[in-house]
């Protein structure tokens, strides 16, 4: 049947397709998006009978040439993006050619598929809601193609349909196996966030100005004290006199899993981390991690890293021992004893301090004492340092942020002959009591020192000496009022806005825990729980079924019987022959015809007919009983009644 599409339907297809193109822009080169838009503009005169419509040949040629271009650029875009591009091409060409209702089928199915593809690129709650809204709109448009014109009823029926399918959605989400992707999903080339591979003086100061979320942590037991919350992310081992970088020259072996050396002594700590998108591999861990979930793997210096750069929110489970990190490779001590001869004053100071101290611990005490006694200041805006940055910091400016102190301490220790390195990561976090999670933002970025002593890398945080508030209460407590203002954007001072964004963050947290975090493990757990609750469920199920049956039975009771008793009797005993009765014929008339075909039983049939008439028309109970008797006695005869086959020639 040829049904033309309404202008409204066309417009909604346009809106959906353009929204999908915008959502999938990561998969599309700019030139390709431009071509799609031009194609769409080509069809803009939205008349069904537009002269431009239906030139199938031309569109085919255009599509083929675009396909060729896409094939040429497949190396850059990758197979997955190529597939999305082809789908978008087909959807666009379909829309350009669309003419009648029948044409919109392919378009709609491709649109549904593309909308599902959007979830590959976006997992945040708000965009997911947007995609869902688009899906609803597509469903609505689809429905409208076939619905009658009453708007309200349509929405109502659509709502009903969605409500009916909701249990299927949920059970699919809960029970469908989480399959590994069939092809590699390419990561988007977006900015890397978080701590970089090199630590320049001033880089952490910049980082803490950002209010962005770094990760969230959920602890299995209670929250450890704040002084323990040193989230290790990067270990900087190379120092060039000015900045620290991650050592990449030595290929470190990566053991599959490390067994805890002395787990009988230390308390282990289990926690889950939901890392935000950083497009880096490095992840966050406390102390020495001993157990990993499969999505992460151990990295050098007892760090943790993801299997590929984190381009989607990543949730992983860790168990750590909050102790000194043992030596990872034999080379490590030597690696971290290298010094650069750029800071002569520091060298002299180190020599002086070593002579006073008897052990490494004593040396640390000396350094702490020095920072505490002498006028050192903690500031977000330290003055610029010259060529010999460590000397300038330790003896002239004496004002710095955590990275300055960490860097200076590490250099000082190395000059004193103690292997030392700078560790970058996050310290502390904001604990949300009600939601039971720790929120760690970029502003919690921190740097501290690890030195080798007692067969392990001991943590030493010089910032804790100069500004203990930073560790105990967070960054804001350690900063002056001016500096706090510097950190807080104007809009964040509005408490209502603050509150709202905080609530949104909490919602986002639940979203990532319950929806994104629902992985194989969780699914397995769910099955286990279902199994454990099997008896209860069976009981509930039986109860439900019983209630349903009861309800059905009562319902049946309440309704009057569809047919009178004699009618039911006759139907039961006459059975198949009765199928030959025309709809409009009454039983007596049929009996009369039946008699003609079954002359032998004519008497019986006559008797039955008479009783039936009295029973059904005169409500004669006596006749009803007799009728039942007669029918019962002659059941076999009645089952053998003849009815001539219909003559096909007639």
């Amino acid at each position, binding site marked *: 049947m040829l049904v033309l599409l309404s202008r409204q339907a066309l417009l909604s297809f346009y809106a959906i397709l353009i929204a999908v193109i915008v959502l999938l822009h990561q998969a599309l080169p700019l030139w390709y998006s431009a071509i799609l838009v031009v194609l769409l503009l080509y069809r803009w005169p939205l008349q069904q009978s537009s002269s431009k419509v239906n030139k199938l040949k031309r569109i085919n040629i255009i599509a083929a040439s675009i396909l060729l271009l896409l094939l040429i650029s497949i190396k850059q875009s990758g197979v997955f993006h190529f597939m999305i591009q082809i789908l978008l091409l087909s959807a666009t060409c379909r829309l350009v050619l669309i003419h009648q209702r029948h044409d919109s089928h392919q378009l709609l199915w491709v649109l549904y598929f593309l909308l599902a593809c959007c979830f590959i690129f976006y997992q945040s709650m708000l965009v997911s809601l947007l995609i869902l809204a688009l899906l609803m709109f597509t469903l609505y448009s689809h429905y409208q193609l076939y619905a009658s014109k009453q708007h309200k009823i349509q929405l109502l029926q659509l709502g009903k349909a969605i409500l009916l399918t909701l249990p299927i959605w949920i059970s699919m989400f809960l029970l469908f196996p989480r399959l590994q992707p069939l092809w590699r999903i390419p990561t988007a080339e977006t900015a890397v966030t978080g701590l970089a591979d090199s630590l320049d003086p001033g880089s952490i100061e910049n980082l803490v100005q950002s209010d962005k979320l770094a990760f969230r942590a959920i602890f299995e037991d209670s929250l450890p004290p704040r002084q323990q919350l040193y989230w290790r992310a990067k270990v900087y081992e190379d120092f060039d006199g000015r900045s620290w970088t991650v050592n990449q020259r030595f290929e470190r072996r990566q053991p599959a899993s490390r067994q805890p050396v002395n787990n009988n002594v230390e308390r282990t700590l289990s926690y889950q981390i939901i890392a935000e998108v950083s497009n880096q591999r490095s992840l966050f861990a406390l102390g020495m991690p001993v157990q990993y979930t499969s999505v992460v793997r151990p990295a050098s210096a007892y760090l943790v890293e993801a299997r590929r750069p984190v381009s989607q929110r990543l949730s992983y489970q860790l168990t750590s021992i909050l102790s000194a990190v043992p030596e990872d490779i034999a080379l490590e001590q030597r690696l971290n004893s290298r010094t650069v001869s750029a800071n002569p004053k520091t060298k002299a100071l180190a020599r002086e301090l070593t002579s006073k101290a008897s052990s490494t611990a004593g040396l640390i005490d000396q350094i702490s004492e020095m920072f505490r006694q002498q006028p050192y200041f903690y500031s977000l805006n330290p003055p610029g340092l010259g060529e010999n940055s460590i000397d300038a910091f330790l003896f002239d400016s004496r004002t710095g942020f955590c990275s300055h102190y960490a860097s200076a301490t590490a250099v000082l220790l190395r000059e004193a002959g103690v292997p030392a390195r700078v560790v970058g990561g996050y310290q502390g976090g904001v604990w949300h009591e009600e939601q039971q999670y720790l929120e760690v933002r970029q502003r919690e970025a921190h740097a501290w020192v690890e030195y080798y002593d007692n067969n392990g890398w001991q943590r030493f945080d010089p910032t804790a000496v100069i500004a203990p508030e930073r560790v105990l209460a967070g960054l804001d407590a350690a900063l002056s009022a001016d500096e706090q203002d510097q950190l807080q954007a104007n809009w964040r001072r509005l408490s209502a806005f603050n509150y709202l964004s905080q609530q949104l963050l909490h919602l986002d947290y639940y979203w990532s825990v319950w929806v994104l975090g629902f992985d194989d493990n969780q699914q397995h757990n769910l099955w286990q729980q279902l199994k454990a609750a099997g008896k209860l469920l069976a009981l509930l199920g039986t109860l439900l079924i019983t209630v349903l049956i009861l309800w059905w039975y009562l319902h049946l009771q309440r309704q009057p019987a569809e*047919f*009178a008793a004699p*009618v039911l009797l006759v139907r039961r005993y006459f059975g198949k022959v009765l199928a030959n009765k*025309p*709809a*409009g*014929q*009454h*039983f*007596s*008339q049929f009996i009369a015809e039946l008699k003609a075909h079954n002359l032998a039983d004519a008497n019986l049939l006559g008797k039955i007919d008479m009783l039936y*008439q*009295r029973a*059904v*028309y*005169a*409500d004669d109970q006596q006749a009803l009983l007799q009728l039942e008797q007669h029918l019962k006695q002659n059941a076999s005869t009645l089952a053998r009644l003849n009815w001539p086959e219909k003559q096909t020639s007639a």
Partner: protein
Amino acid sequence: MLAQLHQVEQSLNQVILGKQQQIRLSLCCLLAEGHLLLEDLPGLGKTTLAHALANSLGLSYRRVQFTSDLLPADLTGMSIYDVRSQQFHFQPGPVFSQVLLADEINRASPKTQSALLEAMEERQVSTDGETRPLPSPFFVIATQNPLFHAGTSALPESQLDRFLMRLSLGFPDRAAEHKLLVDDSKGSRLQFLTQQLDSDTLKNLQKQVSAVKVSDAVIDYLLSLVDASRNRNDMLPLSPRASKALLRASRAHAMLAGRDFTSADDVQQVFPSVAEHRLDPRSSAASHSLSQILLEQTDCPL
């Protein structure tokens, strides 16, 4: 009493030959206190049947030949000034009788036709601001020529609805017509008719009709027939008046068949004559196409 009724039926069958079905239905109609419309080509015995019915039931009857210049007052009567008593006296028209034979009713003007409306439904006549009851029982037996005949004005739906049944006699079969021709030389067929009933007996019979039992199942079937007409758009829907008429006619049919209960067969037998002119006022009485469709397509569970 039922025996008398059967005698009436027999003698009618001797006057109108070979039309048992129609005669039974027409008796049905009168027992159900309904008005009867006979539609046929001229010369098929409409007027004879009307006469015979009135005669054998022993009712006073008046016959009015409807013509285009017939006025309402010619039917209902009028007040005439009496010079001697110097007063108006109401001179009752032909409508004041037990049976009114309205011959060729569709030749009269619509104005006159509708003057019959009140008389038929209310069984009373209002003239000069006075309402006068009609005698009881009161029947209108009307005859009409098919609509396509010249000089006819169709009865409006409202008036058709007031006739309980519309019947058509149709041509007699060959044997019946042969007998008719042979007997005709012996004199008028109306000689067979004698008065079989009086008006009191008729009233009793009509009361008995109401006593005929109707089971719920039959009423359900009747309602599904009526409902079926309401869910289609190729016919006019049947009104509750029609369903009442249908039930009454079915009861009368059951009584004529000698039963004290109504069966689905009774409903099916009277349905075409009761329903056809209401389903399609423009149809001819001989066709029962619409009512047949309803009968065939409506499931009869009984």
